[in-house]
Structures are given as C-alpha cells and as structure tokens.
C-alpha cells in the first residue's frame, strides 16, 4: 500500500508530514510476512545448494545450456568448479591499497545556473615497513556548454549529462582518479586499486536505451580507457583492480542453477513458459540471492569460484576488461561481491592479491574495506554542503532560482 506523503489529522491534532504511528503498523505487517516466507526461502536455498553440488559432473552440459539459452534474466558464465571455497592467501609484507569514491550535485532545473559538480575522494594506504596514508578529495564543477552534454560526432544530437547519466559520468571520474593514483605510485609494491560498486555500467545496459555515441564516450573512451591504463601499469608492476559490492542483490549464479533445473534444452522462457510464473520447475530456486548460497558454502575470509558476467554491455564492449566476479564471506552477516576485469581473473597471482587484500581491508575496516570507507568520507557531499554550494553559485553568479526552489528553502506558514 502506498504511503500518503502528507497526512491530515482531525482538527486540533498535530499535523505531520509522515505519521510514523501509521507506518509502524504497516512495518509490523511487513515483518510478519517476511517471517512467514522464511521457511520457503530456506528450502529454496537448500535446493539451490544441492543443485550446485550436483552440477560437478556435468558442467560442460550446463555451459552449453547457458550458451544456447534464451532467458529474460541474466545468467553467470560458469567456471570449471562451482562449489570451491578458497581461503585467502597471505598478505604481502609491504603493499598499497588505492581506492576512490565519488558523489555529485546534479543539475537542478530550478536553478538558473546550469551546472553539476562531481567530488571524488581518493585514498592511498601503504602498509608494511613504512606505513603511510594519503587522503584527498578533488571537486570538479562542470559548467561549459560542451561539459554538460554528450554530443554525437556529427553534432546534430546530444544527450544531457544529468540524473542516471551523471551517475555513469561519476563512475568514469572515479576510475579516472584511481588510474591517476596508480600511475603516480613511486614504489613498485603489490597494489590493489579498489572501486566502489560495479565494474559494469548498468545504466547504459538498462531499459532506457542511449544512443551509441553515449556509450562510446562514457564506456570506450571513458571507463574502459582508464581500466586499460591500469592494465598497462600492471604489466610493469603488480597492480590489480577490483570493484567491491557490499550486500549484493545479484542472482546470476542462482539463474545458472535455474537453467540446470529447466527441463527444456535449449532453454527458451518465452517459448515454453510464457505466462507460467511460479509454476515453472526453475521457480523452485527462483528469488534466491547468490549471497544466500555462498553464505552457506563459505567460511569467513573464503572466496567462491570466479564467474563471468554475461551482461550485454560487457559482452559487446569490455573485451580484456570483461567483468568477472567472485563472492567473499566477510562474516555471518556480510557476503560481498568482488568484480575483477578478465586480465585480473586470468592471473592467479593478481586474483590472489585481490582476495588477500580485500580480506585484510575488511578486517581492518569493521567488515568493509577501510580504503573505500575513507574514500567515501572524502567524497561525501552532505545536504548542507549542497545547499551551501547553490548559495555560493547564486551569490557569485547573481542569478535567480525558481519560486519553487526558494519556497523549499524558506519555509513559512
């Protein structure tokens, strides 16, 4: 049931925007519902794990089934073993962890000055004989007409950088900062460069389609260019890159198990199962998150096998940087998804370095990589910062904002 944003109470009672007493009742109902579903969920997880173990002898068959499948959901590319659980290798004596994270202030159509701001926090932590830390943030204001849009090569059309697309632009800038930090390293120590979130720029693979030149600018000439810079650096020093997703909600491994369960070959959801939601055999494990499976398979510090992403954007564009991923158990409450480009996944040494250093970072960071947590602290733009930013803009540019925007700031009765 949708919550009413503004509740008008009987005359004489206090008017509030959100009536928490009413919400509390609804929360109780939600909790009861989740509890009732718990038994069913446990059964599904057990079945998923059983299916995963059963695949050991028929992985080639499952791989072929995945290749030929036509599904509506994303399925992982599977490795040679599904149920391995690997302990972290020891940390090198001296090593460096780099991390970057960003936040932004979006274009606000109620303000006369059209601009956006990206603030990227970059961290370098050095461990070992000469421990050291560098914590920095770098804000960039984009205001030139050409900075605010991505134009087609012909110049006939353009896509404004705002909303979800600004999120992608921010990811590109985070990767840019990380590549710069990696290129400035003076010591050739084993280094892990960490990004927050996914290596896959999902916005550009989502339902809303963007013109080809947008992907070209942001992915090929943006994100992948900086990943490539880091790959080249890894040829001369031991540098690995990884993207870290806390509490992931992905189901790509579960979806591979759904294919294993499916009686049809080739699997074709539209052809065989259209309109049969919840009656299909594969529904016996549907809805199980990958992390629920690996929470049972892994012990603290252990990682899963490395799977491959089959997302369309990755298959079409990523090449050597194709996203691979494994799960790592941090503690009983946290399974993280670690995404690594193909060139890292293909090197046992680099994958081991990612595993060892992420485990070290999580132990030092109360369950979350300490370098990422500090990068976030340097990047964060608070509500107060945002307001102050716009005040500065309006004062210096001497422009007027919309009546709606002013009314939000100066509340009155």
């Amino acid at each position, binding site marked *: 049931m949708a919550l009413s944003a503004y509740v008008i109470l009987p005359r004489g009672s206090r008017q509030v925007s959100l009536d928490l007493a009413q919400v509390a009742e609804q929360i109780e109902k939600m909790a009861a519902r989740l509890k009732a579903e718990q038994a069913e969920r446990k059964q599904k997880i057990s079945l998923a794990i059983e299916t995963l173990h059963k695949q050991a002898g028929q992985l080639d068959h499952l791989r072929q089934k995945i290749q030929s499948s036509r599904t509506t959901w994303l399925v992982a590319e599977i490795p040679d073993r599904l149920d391995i659980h690997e302990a972290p290798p020891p940390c090198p004596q001296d090593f460096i962890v780099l991390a970057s994270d960003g936040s932004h202030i979006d274009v606000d159509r109620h303000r006369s000055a059209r601009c956006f701001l990206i603030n990227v926090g970059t*961290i370098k*932590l050095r*461990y070992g004989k000469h*421990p*050291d*830390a*560098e*914590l920095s943030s770098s804000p960039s204001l984009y205001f030139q007409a050409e900075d605010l849009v991505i134009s087609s090569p012909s110049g006939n059309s353009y896509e404004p950088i705002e909303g979800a697309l600004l999120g992608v632009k921010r990811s590109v800038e985070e990767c840019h900062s990380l590549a710069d930090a990696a290129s400035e390293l003076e010591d050739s120590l084993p280094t892990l460069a960490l990004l927050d979130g996914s290596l896959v720029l999902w916005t550009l693979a989502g339902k809303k389609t963007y013109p080809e030149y947008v992907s070209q600018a942001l992915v090929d000439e943006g994100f992948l260019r900086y990943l490539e810079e880091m790959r080249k650096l890894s040829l001369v020093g031991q540098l690995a890159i990884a993207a870290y997703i806390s509490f992931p909600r992905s189901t790509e491994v579960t979806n591979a198990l759904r294919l294993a369960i499916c009686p049809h070959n080739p699997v074709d959801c539209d052809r065989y199962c259209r309109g049969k939601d919840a009656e299909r055999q594969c529904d016996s494990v549907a809805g199980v998150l990958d992390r629920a499976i690996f929470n049972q398979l892994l012990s603290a510090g252990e990682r899963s096998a490395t799977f491959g992403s089959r997302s369309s954007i990755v298959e079409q564009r990523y090449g050597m940087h194709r996203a691979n991923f494994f799960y790592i158990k941090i503690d009983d409450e946290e399974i993280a998804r670690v995404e690594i480009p193909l060139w890292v996944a293909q090197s046992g040494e680099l994958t081991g370095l990612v595993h060892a250093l992420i485990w070290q970072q999580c132990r030092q960071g*109360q369950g979350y990589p300490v370098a990422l947590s500090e990068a976030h*602290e340097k990047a964060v733009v608070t509500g107060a910062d945002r307001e102050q930013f716009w005040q500065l803009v309006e004062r210096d540019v001497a422009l007027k904002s919309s009546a709606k925007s002013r009314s939000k700031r100066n509340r009155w009765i």
Partner: protein
Amino acid sequence: MDLTVEATKIGEVIEASTGKFTAQCYQLNQAPPLGSLVKVGSMPSEIFAVVYNIENHSLELGRRPIARGESEETEEGIFRANPQLSKLLCTDFNALVLGHRQADDIAHWLPPKPAYIHNFVYTCSSDEVRDFTQSLHFLSLLVAANLPTPVEEITAACLRYSSQAHDDPHAFLVKAGKELATLLSGDLKRLNSILKKL
C-alpha cells in the same frame, strides 16, 4: 619535551582571540608540554603564550575513534595496521597569551591584535624563555586568567618549565614565589597550592 636551543615550528593557529588561541599540531601527540611557552608570528611582532590545555581527538566531527588494538601486541602496531589514523586524528592545544614583542622589547601585556588564523606556532628557544621570564610581570595575567584547567596547575607548570632556562633555576623559583606571594596575598589557599608544586 625539554627546552630546545632553537625555536621549533610545531603547528598552526586555528582559532584566536585577544587573550587565547588554539593551535593544531602538525604531528599527532606532539604538543608542547603543559605550561611551556610558545610563540606565534615572526619578528618584530611575536605573541608569547603559555600552553594550558592539550587535546588529542578525531579530526572529523561525528567520527569517534574506536578501540582497535585487541589483537595488537603494541600500540604502535595499531598505527602500522591502520596508517590512515595518523591523518584522521590530531592534537590541538590551547594557549593563554602572556605578552608580545614590541619592536625589540618584550611587553607583558596583551597584544593590540590577536594571532591570525594559520599563524605558525613555534616552541620558544631556551634564550627566548629566559628573556620572556626575566621579568615576572607575566604572572599577573596568568594568575588572573579564567581557564578550564586549574590556573594553579598551569602557573606551577609554567614556572617549573621556565626555570630550566635560567642559570640558577632555584633562585628563579624563589623569586617567582615572592612575586606570587604579592599577587595572591589575599588568597593563601591558591598561593600554597602553587608553591607546593614548584
């Protein structure tokens, strides 16, 4: 920290008023000792002050340090395992202004202008401490101050520290005791409290 021959740069003013200032140290836990003399600015306009409070804390409001060393054998081990801590924690100290330099003379009264934000703060060299405490007029500002730490503690610490800069520390303390006896003639309790700590 003992008296040094050379003045050493230790931090910067981050808050200042006519009678007090707060400085942030460049190095964690490297504040000058309580009661020591520090100076801000450079010749010919220097402000002299006594350290009356030192605080070690998180640099960021709302980020409270947590215990980290359960599995570490040494306290240094905590900083080795968490190199970012040295950038997230800091040491500040508060200083009470006791005088300033006017041309070449030392004046034991408040300066016409407070320290500037970002003025460098230096420990005073032993020569400077001796010059500044040659006359004990600074004690009147010190004993009259209203500080969050007990003034008697700071006065005694300042005199003990400064005495090391004089050829005859004992004679210096006796002279200071007499000056205090005059200043606090109506408050024997406070006077005794200081004298016992000298």
